[in-house]
């Protein structure tokens, strides 16, 4: 035990020192990554997620597990993110090849100079809710007036502010919300931010101290931004705009990557139970019922696709998100962007090509007959 840790420690130290010493020279040659990989059969591709491994990213894990990426000649590594990793920044800095991020957040980064393109709008609908207790009488945005409203901030708050702006509600107290729902359950927050696929499920997995059973959907009142008309586009696949324009190989890789990823999402639609298990096996500690719930809710955000196929950017929805990003001001009066984004901010070129190839192979890319599961959550999500 002692000996082992000693050796690995020394090896690790040597490695670390060597790496630190060489970091300077290596960083200047990193652009040659693609050329160096030509010797291998598979093209290495890195995908930066915007959060930990969970079924929110089920399609990519399914594509990896089912060998779809490999069939396209890609060796994909999926990088989960943590508290401070900003996927669009990692992409713009050339650290990764593709990234998953919400559109409004990235619009801000693009205005700051990030050269990246939305090449596939995977989630067609918004998953953001504002949840309150049913007896609190908050059934509409107007009734948020004078309330304590929870939000995670960091760019997750814009749909809320768009809704508040639109309803003319100004007298609210915004409370920084943690990753759990305890502040809401304890009454510190009147209306808490929740994703349909995660935090809302956390509530339904928690015990209601009054009844001793789990909370039920009828215990809560939910404001859904899709219904309020201030939904913004969420999870999209982003690619490096400069490389798309200059690097033909990267453009081809993008189509292959999209093709395999879409196949993964189709797999997640048709095999939600198996997909949930794949995600758990990929290193998620979420319980089985929570993971399945998340897979199912994420499927609902994608299927059925009304834009002509999963991943197609609907110009109207894009325009709506841009308009809200220009107009919506938060509690400090700031807006996400001040000018229209450049035309490179999104492109349907690559997804159209990927979808056409998939349709030719007989893949159903619209899921018109999609029927969601009805998932029962267990206590603690297990």
């Amino acid at each position: 035990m002692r000996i082992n840790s000693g050796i690995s420690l020394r090896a690790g130290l040597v490695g670390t020192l060597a790496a630190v010493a060489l970091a300077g020279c290596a960083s200047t040659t990193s652009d040659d990554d693609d050329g160096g990989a030509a010797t291998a059969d598979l093209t290495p591709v890195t995908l930066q997620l915007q959060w930990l491994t969970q079924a929110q990213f089920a399609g990519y894990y399914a594509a990896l597990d089912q060998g779809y990426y490999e069939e396209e000649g890609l060796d994909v590594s999926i990088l989960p993110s943590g508290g401070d990793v900003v996927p669009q920044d990692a992409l713009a800095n050339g650290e990764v090849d593709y990234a998953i991020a919400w559109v409004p957040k990235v619009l801000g980064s693009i205005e700051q100079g990030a050269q990246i393109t939305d090449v596939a709008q995977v989630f067609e609908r918004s998953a953001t809710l504002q949840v309150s207790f049913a007896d609190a009488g908050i059934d509409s945005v107007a009734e948020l007036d004078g309330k304590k409203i929870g939000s995670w901030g960091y760019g997750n708050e814009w749909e809320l502010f768009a809704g508040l702006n639109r309803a003319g509600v100004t007298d609210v107290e915004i409370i920084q919300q943690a990753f759990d729902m305890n502040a809401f359950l304890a009454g510190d927050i009147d209306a808490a931010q929740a994703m349909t696929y995660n935090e809302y499920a956390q509530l339904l997995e928690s015990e209601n101290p009054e009844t001793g059973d789990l909370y039920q959907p009828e215990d809560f009142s939910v404001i859904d931004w899709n219904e309020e008309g201030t939904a913004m586009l969420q999870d999209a696949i982003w690619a490096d705009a400069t490389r798309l324009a200059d690097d033909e190989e990267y453009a081809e890789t993008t189509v292959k990557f999209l093709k395999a990823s879409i196949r993964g999402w189709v797999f997640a639609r048709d095999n939600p139970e198996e997909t949930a298990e794949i995600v758990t096996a990929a290193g998620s500690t979420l319980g089985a019922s929570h993971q399945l719930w998340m897979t199912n809710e994420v499927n609902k955000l994608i299927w059925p696709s009304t834009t002509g196929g999963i991943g197609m950017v609907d110009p109207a929805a894009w325009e709506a998100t841009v308009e809200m990003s220009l107009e919506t001001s938060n509690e400090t009066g700031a807006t996400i962007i001040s000018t229209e984004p450049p035309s490179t901010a999104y492109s349907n070129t690559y997804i159209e090509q990927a979808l056409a190839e998939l349709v030719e192979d007989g893949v159903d890319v619209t899921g018109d007959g999609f029927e969601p599961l009805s998932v029962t959550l267990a206590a603690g999500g297990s």
Partner: protein
Amino acid sequence: MRRRLADLGLGVAALLGVAATWELYKLLGPEQGWSVREVRVLPRTTDLAMPHVWEMLGRLPEPLTGAPGAVPLWVAVLQASGFSLAVALVSWVLGVVVGFCFAVGMQRFALVEAAVLPLVVLSQTVPLIALAPLVKGWGGRVEIGGFAWQGWMSVAVIASYLAFFPVAVGALRGLQSPDSIHRELMRAYGAGWWSTLVRLRLPASVPYVLPAIRLAGANAVVGTIVAEVSTGLPGGVGRMILEFANFASSDPAKPWAPLLGAVLLGLLVAGLVSLVGLPLGRYRRAEVTA
């Protein structure tokens, strides 16, 4: 031996004391906590906010998740702690070595001290959340021959950034601590800078360096856990804390398990670091706190 046992007894008593204080407050404290205006001074005592100690411990032997074949929670926590321990030790060694090199350089050249010491102090004002994505980004581009940068190395570098500081400052003070009468004696012997360093300054610095490396140990553990949270590195306690936050409402005892792991980690590192002092006993005449 008897002293060891007494120490152990004291340690256990301290742990029991913490648990007893927790339960006592939970029993007597106001259910809704206590706030002065908007600022919460005392926490709530509900089962959601403060699960009973026995509930936290009782959760440990239960499986991690409801999935078939899931390991018990305590096994998962220990595995994560072991992973973080390895990273923390690497970062500690790195921090101590770098810190010591800084100290020796600063002691040797007054110019270096004047130039570097303010930067060393300034370095600690850079918030970790700004540094973490940068280091991760740089690391992601490092690829030399067969060597590829691993995610844990970013975490080790970030943690060593916190760990080197007390060593640099403490060791510098220690190296400068010999009285002028001793330095002049060395000069009278015709001893050069190197012999003076090895025979006079290093032994004299021991009482300053030992507390400094103990601080570095604590910093390495905190830095490792925070950097794990920050960069989302899978495998360690930090990531586990982040992941288990998901269960704070639905499985309130579970998020406390990785915290117990973090405490264990801190104790272990403190113990390992104190071992360094054992062979240096003859130099530890007057230990000072850094």
